[in-house]
């Protein structure tokens, strides 16, 4: 006991310093999405290797399940390819040929290194970074084509994704049935539900209607979820809806990072237009 007290006496200044410094850094990191993402990616670059080694063991034991998913996906893609070949047989389909020659969207597989789902500003760290061609603003989806989030920061070997479960997340959405657009965001209330706001009064939302992403960062057809509930606002000028998230955000593992090769060009065009 005496030795313990002596030991504490010797290190208490250091302990207090680490504690207070930790609080200061945490406060600073939380002050803006930039600092949060940057500090997270820096610390992850160190911790990522350790975390990666641990998750590798988990991945090993989940290989059979992953194989089944991949085989199902390959079968699905083969089916899609076959149907396209059938359509183009004997007919020159320029648009399809063009897409095959120079795909606008490029997909890269990535694995989750670490993630949180119990905070208001959650983040996911993936094992792909700038070295693999990953950059800010790329979209992240599940192999089942469901939205997960967007890349907000990269280190050399890792990237940080702002998932839908982040109160600062926002993206465009589209009702599949009638093309009406809306803004998708997360209120922080439930990790299974998103909010769709600013839906036109003519959009006629209904329960079970699918909502897709409408963003220049992702191709069409990426599913956000299905409408669970909706209501007209008090001014009767727009609908807001609760969306049940399609992706299981608490058990993400293998993901796809989507790069729109025309994104820079599109952004430049939008900026030029805004400056006019």
């Amino acid at each position, binding site marked *: 006991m005496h030795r313990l007290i002596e030991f504490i006496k010797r290190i208490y200044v250091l302990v*207090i*310093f680490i504690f207070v410094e930790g*609080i200061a850094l945490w*406060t*600073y990191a939380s*002050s803006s999405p930039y600092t949060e993402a940057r*500090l997270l990616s820096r610390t992850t670059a160190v911790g990522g290797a350790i975390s990666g080694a641990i998750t590798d063991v988990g991945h090993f034991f989940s290989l059979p399940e992953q194989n089944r998913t991949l085989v199902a996906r390959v079968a699905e893609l083969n089916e899609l390819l076959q149907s396209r070949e059938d359509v183009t047989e004997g007919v020159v389909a320029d648009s399809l040929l063009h897409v095959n020659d120079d795909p606008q969207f490029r997909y890269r597989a990535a694995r989750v290194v670490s993630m949180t789902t119990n905070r208001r500003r959650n983040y996911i760290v993936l094992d792909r970074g700038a070295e693999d061609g990953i950059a800010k603003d790329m979209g992240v989806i599940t192999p089942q084509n469901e939205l997960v989030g967007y890349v907000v920061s990269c280190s050399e070997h890792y990237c940080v994704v702002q998932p839908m479960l982040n109160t600062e997340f926002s993206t465009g959405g589209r009702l599949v049935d009638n093309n009406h657009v809306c803004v998708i965001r997360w209120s922080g209330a439930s990790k299974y539900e998103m909010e769709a706001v600013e839906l036109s009064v003519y959009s006629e939302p209904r329960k079970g209607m699918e909502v897709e992403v409408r963003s220049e960062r992702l191709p069409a057809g990426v599913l956000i979820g299905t409408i669970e509930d909706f209501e007209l606002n008090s001014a009767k000028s727009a609908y807001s809806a609760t969306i049940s998230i399609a992706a299981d955000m608490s058990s993400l593992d293998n993901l796809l990072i989507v790069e729109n090769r025309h994104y820079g060009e599109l952004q430049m065009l939008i900026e030029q237009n805004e400056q006019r």
Partner: protein
Amino acid sequence: MFKNIAYFWMTLAVLLLDIFILNQLSIAMWLRPMLFPLIVVLLPMEWRTIWVLITSLVVGLIMDMSLGGAGLYTATLLPMAIMRRTILFVTTGRSVEAGDQSSLLSRMSLRQLMIYVGGMLFVHHTLFFILEALSFGALLQLIATIIFSTLLSLLIAWPIVRLFTSKIVTK
């Protein structure tokens, strides 16, 4: 005994100068002098580290609240409290002995004092600008900011340091 009044006025002057003048200056992106680390730099060397740490925390919080640093000023000032004696030893070769260190700063030669103050400012500015940028993308600009800002800080700080240390001796 350490001259508390001289120290109080120095602290007040440095804080006011930093918050109301230096922070408002926009000379160049790579030239941002900061004087508030002086408060920790010039604390009596015989003070126990815990008190230096508490002072750093208070000064950091004042700076953060005044300039909206959101913890940045505190996070970069706290390590100075821990590293102070090490930097003193590395820069001047002097170590702090128990008992008779009440006016160590005033007993240092001008060269030693300048190296010590410059070293402390350099370490602080390095931590501050790296943590502020959180990126080594513009490494040359970062290095230029650290070096030139440290030099300008030292230039502005030197008269204050001299006045302060002379007050310690004369009072």
